[in-house]
């Protein structure tokens, strides 16, 4: 989650042709990638799709640090190794589906500023849902800042030590409690400032 800020930085500061490409067409392209993932059942097709996405990723000059984000979902895909009885074809099929999905999404987020994505989503989805999505995305950054401070405080109170599980659990829980309370305080302030700026159920994006 901490790499979210890199995604944002890449989306805003990137200068490649994919960054300049219309957000609408990038979202449509992502829908086609998803359609391919759902319908394709042969390794060759998926391998080709993954190769295309990888090529786009590297020619868009997206920071390499972000590439690890595309591999994160493999943690969950590893479960399939055990439940499939170590059948290599099936495992490869699942892994490729996972990698195509994550690379496609990271490619979209790393080349398109999030207000543009939310602006387009707002045209097709209910405004209340898009507003909730936008506020959640903003809140993640606020919470990540609070989390950084909380981590220092937790460290000073003993942090997480495997030799003291109960104390560690209490520290983690109090850390989350602190995060929630500070987050709620921040959300109250955010609401007041939004109302002052004329918020009425819907956020309007530039260019709308």
């Amino acid at each position, binding site marked *: 989650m901490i790499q979210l800020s890199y995604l944002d930085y890449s989306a805003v500061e990137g200068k490649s042709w994919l960054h300049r490409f219309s957000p609408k067409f990038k979202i449509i392209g992502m829908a086609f990638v998803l359609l391919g993932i759902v319908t394709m059942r042969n390794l060759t097709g998926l391998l080709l799709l993954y190769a295309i996405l990888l090529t786009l990723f590297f020619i868009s000059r997206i920071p390499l640090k972000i590439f690890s984000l595309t591999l994160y979902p493999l943690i969950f895909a590893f479960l399939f190794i055990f439940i499939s009885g170590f059948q290599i074809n099936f495992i490869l099929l699942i892994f490729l589906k996972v990698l195509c999905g994550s690379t496609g999404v990271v490619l979209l987020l790393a080349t398109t500023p999030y207000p543009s994505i939310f602006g387009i989503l707002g045209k097709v989805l209910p405004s209340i*849902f898009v507003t909730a999505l936008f506020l959640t995305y903003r809140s993640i950054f606020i919470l990540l800042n609070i989390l950084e401070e909380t981590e220092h405080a937790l460290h000073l109170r003993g942090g997480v030590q495997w030799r003291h599980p109960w104390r560690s659990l209490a520290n983690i*829980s109090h850390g989350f409690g602190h995060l929630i309370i500070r987050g709620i305080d921040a959300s109250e302030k955010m609401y007041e400032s939004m109302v002052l700026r004329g918020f009425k159920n819907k956020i309007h994006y530039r260019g709308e």
Partner: protein
Amino acid sequence: MSHIHFPDGVLPVWLWASGFIVAILVGAILFRFIKKEELTRRLPLLGMMAAVMVLGASVEIVPIAYHINLTVISGILLGPSLIFLATFVVNVILALFGHGGITVIGLNTLTLSIEGIIGYFLFRLLWRVFRRLTPAIFIATFLALFCSTLSMIGVVSLGTSHYEELIHQERKGIIGFHLSKEKGDEHQGGVSERKVNLKRFIAIVLPLGFIGWILEGVITSLITRYIHRLRPDLLRLKT
């Protein structure tokens, strides 16, 4: 455990499409119970709690393949209508980072919101019975997680014939499936094998889940106690 971590293309289309349809219908019904002004006023809180849930879900407890959901505490703070929208948003963001497929968002919303809604009502009920915070929140969290895990198992089991189909093209089995080519065998043997298969899946999920439910129950209790000490108004408890 209640979060379905399946990538896109594994669950059958009819299943995930029905997940979206049912989620939209349930959402539409739940939104009738909340006033528009109330919804607008609480949207920033919803966003913040959804963000807390996203952060909680990104901390993986590797040995038991578990991550805390924090859906019950979010349900208590947001109420049953808003927790539904919050889980929808959380699942969209998690799916964007490959934490469960994009097509599974509807089903994941349903299973996670079951957790939040049951947790909310159980907590209110148990608070009236015990008048003590820790047992009320622990039992509510534990039972809510149990119910949502059962619903997740139910959803996964609905797609068994599709997994069979996916494997059939590889001429091999998944989760202990060994397909019989003759129709008669399929009819007789298939049912029992399907049962064995589900039993194996449940045998992995439930014991690991049990540890996770206790862990999340303890964490949620400690968080709630912390909130109760500093901001009791947030819990809206009648004393």
